[in-house]
């Protein structure tokens, strides 16, 4: 394992809260690790669980799904469905030998730029501590 291990994180961010939150982190110039690659989706409910599995198959070290806080979904219900889908996928992947800590579901509102950077920071840290995925 190389000395500086840089985990690769794929982030599916809902356009209305989390993506805006990530933008706010930018406008307020809060630095966070450059390990995340953000894919913009209209709603966290757009995320097909297979996207997540696919990302892991390709070699992602971590996948972040972020949406509006429960009750705040721009589409009123989206994140509740996401919660159920990811909620079931997570223990299943763990069961199949993929540490559930590698799949994160977070609620980040458009006003939580700081929180977004903290999420990315802590997630990156966790992944670094865990080291590369055993293959």
């Amino acid at each position, binding site marked *: 394992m190389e000395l500086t291990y840089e985990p690769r994180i794929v982030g599916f961010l809902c356009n209305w809260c989390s993506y805006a939150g990530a933008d706010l982190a930018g406008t307020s110039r809060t630095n966070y690790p450059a390990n995340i690659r953000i894919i913009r989706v209209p709603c966290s409910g757009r995320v097909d*669980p*297979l996207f997540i*599995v*696919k990302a892991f*198959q390709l070699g992602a070290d971590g996948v972040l799904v972020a949406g509006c806080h*429960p*009750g705040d979904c721009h589409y009123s*219900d989206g994140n*509740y*469905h996401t*919660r*159920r*889908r*990811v*909620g*079931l*996928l*997570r*223990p*299943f*992947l*763990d*069961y*199949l*030998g*993929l*540490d*559930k800590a590698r799949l994160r*579901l977070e609620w980040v509102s458009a006003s939580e730029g700081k929180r977004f950077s903290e999420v990315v920071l802590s997630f990156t840290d966790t992944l670094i501590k865990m080291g590369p995925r*055993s293959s």
Partner: protein
Amino acid sequence: MIEIIRNKAKEWLEKNEDGCVIGYERASDGMTARPVFIYEPHMMGKLIFDETCVHNLSKYLLNRRGTRTAVVVKPCDSRGINLLINEHQLDRDSIYIIGVVCPGMKESHFGRIEDHPLSKCRRCLHHTPAVYDVLVGEPQPETASHDYSDVARIEGMSLQERNAFWKEQFGRCIRCYGCRQICIGCYCQECFVDELDPLWVGIRSCPEDNWIWNIGRAFHLSARCISCGECERVCPVGIPLMLANRKLEKESADLFDFEPGMDAATAPPFATFIKEETLEKVE
């Protein structure tokens, strides 16, 4: 018992000339069973029912959508019918369900019938069909609680062990898709695995692609698998597919308090939600 099945089927077919009775007959090896489709009442004598009748016949109902069909089902198979009705695939009125109280099926290997029951039957909870028009046999009490010792064994392993275990299992997959063809839940026009653009799963049989295929298959059956165990039975390389399915069954019971196919009305977990629920397991 078999007489009741034959008579009921006969009665029904006489009333519905255009109908078809799907049941079991003795296979050519003279000991195992195989599905039979009967169109004339006088052929009813062919029907048999014993612990070799492993097949889940309700799958065939999908090919007979819109026609009148009678089917012989075991409890697990009957849940499949509920599933299909819930998913708007079947019209309850066009089906005549001959539900049989299940004694538990036996494994059969190369013309030899093992004397111990199938693993799925050892762990079976429901011995009386969940839905039927006529019930054959005395209703049996449910087994009190799930036996997830098999799942627990895997859960007990370390992450690395689990990873290795499943890599080995899925690694053997030859992508014959028998599990899919036999599965009552797999009735898509075109399976995501067959789609080329977008390419969800690479077409070659390599560890990575086998991995995503098997996960995709199992997850599409989450909170839908009625544990008839057919996928595992037909798998030519003996991948313990039910071991994966049952984990999802267990989780969806814990998280959503839902057991598939017990009735045709209850909305499945992914069709609904509870605002207040936290799914702590999401952590």
